[in-house]
């Protein structure tokens, strides 16, 4: 009996060893294949485009990929990489290009002090990335996916509110829909109060984040928080995004970032992607998000339609 068990264990062990070795072999063969493919298409060049794991970033990455393919590149796509991992992927050369946000680069990746001027943020990250990571930030798009506040169209018309200063002046007539954390976070109400003055809301209630659009749409609150490119902001007959007129929040402009090694090899990438960035503003991106998140289209199709239009 004992012998049988022993034999079984040895067998299992051998089997798993073979499996592991087999997997390793497969992997090395795979990367060998990729290298061959690269060598084979050296005339036009091949790059790997990555993206983070949410709709907007996937759409933009797909547009980059389409533009590069159009210029004759062979593009490998590695979409849907977790936001916390994507930076490591590019520094370890798993990917060559992905769309990043200037604010994320500055605050999350570099851990630098938050700035609020678009160019200042862009120049800081461009310089630091080049020095530290050997990565180039190409031109940034006007599109800004940052923190924001929106108000119901009705309240906006009634009190003439289109920016946060006007909101602060009229706060006593407005009902605020919070998610709780916004009242406490340093870049939430406390920060807004320091910059714009006290917000004496008529009422401030906490709702689940997923409910904010319904709550404002059903006239149970007037003001809520949102990211500036959230899909439902396309419903401009219901919601108005408020302008951050005193620049409370750092800008989160979209820009392609490319490994220097790749850019030196194929300098034409800069022109190709800068042309894409020039066509992306906040409103456009919000619409593209809505096509995927609200209308349920595939991000690849949305990117393709958009690219055909700007080509």
């Amino acid at each position, binding site marked *: 009996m004992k012998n049988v068990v022993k034999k079984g264990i040895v067998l299992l062990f051998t089997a798993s060893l073979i499996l592991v070795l087999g997997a390793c072999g497969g992997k090395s063969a795979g990367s060998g294949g990729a290298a061959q493919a690269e060598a084979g298409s050296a005339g036009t060049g091949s790059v790997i485009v990555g993206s983070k794991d949410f709709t907007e970033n996937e759409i933009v990455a797909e547009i980059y990929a389409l533009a590069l393919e159009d210029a004759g590149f062979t593009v490998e796509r590695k979409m849907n990489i977790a936001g916390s991992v994507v930076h490591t992927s590019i520094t370890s050369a798993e990917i060559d290009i992905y769309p990043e946000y200037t604010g994320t680069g500055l605050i999350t990746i570099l851990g630098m002090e938050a700035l609020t001027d678009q160019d200042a943020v862009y120049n800081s990250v461009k310089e630091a990335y080049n020095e530290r990571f050997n990565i180039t930030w190409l031109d940034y798009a006007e599109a800004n996916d940052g923190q924001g506040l929106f108000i119901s169209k009705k309240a906006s018309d009634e009190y003439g509110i289109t920016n946060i200063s006007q909101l602060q002046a009229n706060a006593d007539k407005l009902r605020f829909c919070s998610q709780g*954390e916004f009242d*406490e976070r340093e870049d939430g109400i406390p920060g807004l109060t320091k910059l714009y003055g006290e917000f004496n809301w008529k009422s401030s209630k906490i*709702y689940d984040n997923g409910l904010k659009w319904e709550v404002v749409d059903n006239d149970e609150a007037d003001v809520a928080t949102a990211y500036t490119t959230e899909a439902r902001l396309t419903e401009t007959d219901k919601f108005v995004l408020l302008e951050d007129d005193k620049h409370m929040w750092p800008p989160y402009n979209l820009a392609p970032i490319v490994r220097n090694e790749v850019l030196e090899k194929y300098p034409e990438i800069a022109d190709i992607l800068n042309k894409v960035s020039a066509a992306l503003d906040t409103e456009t991106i919000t619409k593209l998000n809505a096509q995927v998140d609200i209308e349920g289209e595939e991000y690849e199709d949305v990117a393709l339609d958009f690219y055909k239009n700007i080509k």
Partner: protein
Amino acid sequence: MIQKIGEYIAAHPQQLAGQIAAHIGISLIALLAAALIGIPCGCLAAGIRKGESIIAAPFEMLRVVPSLAVLILLIPVMGTGIPPAVTALTILAIPPVLLNTVVGFRSIPDFMIESARGIGMTERELFRRVKVPAALPMILAGLRTALVEVVASTTLAAKIGAGGLGEIIFTGLGLYRMDLLVLGGGLVAILSLVSGGVFDILTRRLFRYKYV
């Protein structure tokens, strides 16, 4: 941690008092509603053969749906705020009240009813002076169970803007701040225990004769 909790309390005293008041208020309204529906239905069910399965079963089926789902399902019908929160909590609280009422009435010894009839009580007198007092301890036990459950679940009301101590808990979750989670969770637990205790004291007063 304790220092952080202290700082938070010191910085938001009014807000905190409001949240505790809202929490107690919502819980009590839900309990009252559950009593108003559960006790009469239980009374009725006790009088009918297989009454539980006819009257209590529907409420039990409703109870199976998680309160959080009920809250969100009610939004298209009732909007947000206190009414849907109270409705969801009432659904949660009805079964213990109803079932205990049924058991309370069913477990009255036959001799009590027979003796009451024997001394010439009318059905109405029998109900008011014998059946209700005999069933009351069970009914109150059901209310107590419901109360403790409701106080704990009122936390969810904060998801739909009805207020209460859930606000602190959800804020703590969003910011990953342990001090807020401990404060909010702790206060709910204390409130739940205290409400049970207060209920016990009231029960003792009501039935002083039982504890002589």
